[in-house]
């Protein structure tokens, strides 16, 4: 029997398994996907120094380290329930139940949906789906596509699709509705992209800096945006156009786009159909926290961290004894932060069990400091003011 079951073999789960195993704990690591790595697998971007962050290679390193230490990794396991039992936690899966005194939820994130007419047609998918299909499965999702939604994630993946020789017609905003909210307002989108541009991994993501970080200049820039859009990596980015319908019979044949006002309202008479055979919709990420909810963990709603966050402290403990969280379930950040948080969770659990307590304690402190350092240096930040919101969250932590 394992002392620790980790649900999710992404960057956080893998790192936690290494840390806990280093301290002598028996660890079982499970994942629903066909191989370990989670969202890290699809990542591919250029660092400031020009080297590539290759998610597959990073995953391989972590997996090799975990396996060398004797972590048992099983893929293809879906967890449908988690509950407290007299001897600890019961993890219910499609391959039977597991019992352990400690459980770490490292379930990562999923993408917010942005529904629009025609979005159920084959060939329409989330931007993350296209990323996995391209970089992990190495299958082209189509010949020519459109990206709907302009945010850090969609820019990063647009570039990845281009690297794999897929043709991207353009990027436009989603239609204005109750779900898309500020993601459909050119001004808001521009501001959020500018906020991110100084952190951008390559000169290409810094396109906005030319437009200066000033609201009136921003407005001016949007007003005089060329008809053919701004060009990023040679792809037109239309912040003054929105997709209003995806058209096609049995699959995607095109997207109806329309010019929009500064506030995202469609301008009548400007509709046109852009012919594409695939569409990627990008609505941003939210923490995948259902298991924390069924386990009875209290939550905080923090939009700046991606949505509903299970309550936890800097040691990655939830208020429920023996239940820990790490990675994107604690708020949306990059894979490097997730890895660092995974180490914190692993050492934190080890220290709590009393296994190699002195080492665990020392390493835990180092790991906690490391999370903060990495967060400061992060070049991909999905939401603004992560640090401030984290401080608020940890300040609110209470034992129950």
């Amino acid at each position, binding site marked *: 029997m394992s002392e620790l079951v980790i649900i999710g073999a992404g960057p956080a789960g893998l790192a936690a398994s290494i840390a806990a195993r280093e301290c002598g704990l028996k660890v079982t690591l499970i994942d629903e996907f066909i191989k370990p790595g989670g969202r890290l697998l699809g990542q591919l971007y250029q660092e400031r120094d020009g080297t590539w962050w290759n998610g597959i290679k990073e995953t391989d390193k972590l997996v090799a380290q975990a396996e060398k230490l004797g972590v048992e990794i099983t893929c293809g396991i879906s967890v449908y*329930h988690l*509950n407290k039992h007299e001897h600890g936690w*019961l993890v*219910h899966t499609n391959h039977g139940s597991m019992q352990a005194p400690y459980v770490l939820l490292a379930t990562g994130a999923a993408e917010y949906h942005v529904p629009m007419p025609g979005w159920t047609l084959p060939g329409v998918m989330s931007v993350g789906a296209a990323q996995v299909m391209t970089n992990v499965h190495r299958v082209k999702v189509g010949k020519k596509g459109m990206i709907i939604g302009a945010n850090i994630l969609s820019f990063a993946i647009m570039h990845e699709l281009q690297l794999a020789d897929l043709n991207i017609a353009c990027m436009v905003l989603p239609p204005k509705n109750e779900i898309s909210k500020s993601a459909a307002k050119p001004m808001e989108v521009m501001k959020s992209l500018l906020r991110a541009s100084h952190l951008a991994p390559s000169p290409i993501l810094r396109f906005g800096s030319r437009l200066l970080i000033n609201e009136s200049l921003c407005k001016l820039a949007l007003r005089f945006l060329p008809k053919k859009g701004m060009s990023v990596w040679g792809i037109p980015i239309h912040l003054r156009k929105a997709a209003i319908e995806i058209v096609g019979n049995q699959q995607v044949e095109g997207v109806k786009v329309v010019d929009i006002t500064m506030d995202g309202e469609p301008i009548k008479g400007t509709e046109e159909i852009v012919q594409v055979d695939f569409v990627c919709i990008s609505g941003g990420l939210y923490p995948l926290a259902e298991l924390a909810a*069924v386990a*009875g963990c209290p939550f905080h709603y923090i939009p700046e961290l991606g949505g509903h966050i299970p309550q936890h402290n800097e040691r990655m403990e939830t208020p429920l004894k023996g239940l820990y969280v790490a990675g994107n379930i604690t708020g949306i950040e990059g894979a490097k932060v997730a890895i660092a948080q995974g180490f914190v969770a692993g050492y934190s659990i080890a220290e709590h069990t009393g296994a190699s307590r002195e080492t665990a304690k020392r390493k835990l402190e180092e790991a906690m400091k490391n999370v903060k350092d990495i967060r400061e240096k992060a070049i991909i930040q999905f939401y603004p003011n992560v640090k401030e919101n984290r401080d608020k969250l940890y300040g609110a932590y209470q034992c129950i």
Partner: protein
Amino acid sequence: MKKNFDVIIIGGGIIGSAIAYYVSKSGMSVAVLEKNELASGTSSRCDGNILAIDKDPGFDSQMSLASQKLVNELSKELEHHFEYRAPGSILVCETEEEMIAAEKWVARQKEAGLPFKMLDRSDIRQESPFFADDLLGGLECETDSTVNPYLFSFALAEGAKKKGANIYTHTEVHSIKKSTTGDFKIETSSGLFTAKKVVNAAGIWAPMIGKMLDIPIPIKPRKGHIIVASRQQPVGLRKVMEFGYLISKFGGQRKVDPPTEKYGVALVFEPTESQNFLIGSSREFVGMNTTVNIDVIKCIARRAIRFYPKMADMLVIRTYAGLRPWTNDHLPIISHVDEVPGFYIAAGHEGDGISLAAITGKLIDELIKEKSHTTIPIEPLRYDRFKVKGVVHS
């Protein structure tokens, strides 16, 4: 803003919504105070039926049939469709003993003039190709009907709004006092409200509201679980329960395994318009806890597979648990409270809130108007029946 009303209803579930509809239809000014969202308590954690099949012949089934008649009218009267239909419902039997008991049940119901009839093996086979081969038969009540409980609540609340009712959500009642003028002063999280009359339609929370006026209300939460299964081939067209459900409901002894007994599990199957289906049921007294207990879910699933073996391959979408407002005689309290003139209780419907909402709304309207004659007799529903029996617990 004026927050003074003829009638204030505490609770925006199916019962509060129905009362709001009937009372505002009578021309009185009405407000509903709901601490959360409309239909966010038991009314959205239930299934949706108006049944006579599981009622004792006599007053219980008379009340249900009166409600059924009103719901039929409402389906024509209200603007919003709430998936109302009346296909009848059936009970299935798994043993000879149950068949004998079922025959007695049918005989008693027929004597009372209700459209009941026995079903044999081949009738059962016709009902659904998914039934287990060994089921012996069952019985049918032709007039039973079904609704979508959320839509029914919303349709009533929208209907009430059209007639001028004000609905305050996220408004939690903190205290109720009777002023010297006889009006009620209600302190809430959205400020002070005043009313000539107050109706406590707070379901499982009714005792807490009662306590604010020193009125003990003997309602206890009785937890139930439901499984929602994915849309697929139609399993059946109407509500199915096992005969043991009757025994379980009335607290009798069944020949079942210990967990089934412990959790009060009995099969309830309900197809929905969207072609999903709901599977219940369980009955437990475990306080105000709505956490899904996986052991109960497994027990319900086992029970469902016993009656529909092929369900083992069907996909579950989700599960939920809710709390029925239980009273010890299985009848709701629909009554004026004589100790506090102008204060009414409309709560304690256990598993029949959807069934009896319409008649409850109608009766409260009649009580408020102090009508000499009510649609059905209200004696069995009076609040003071508990005092007579000496079972009011504070």
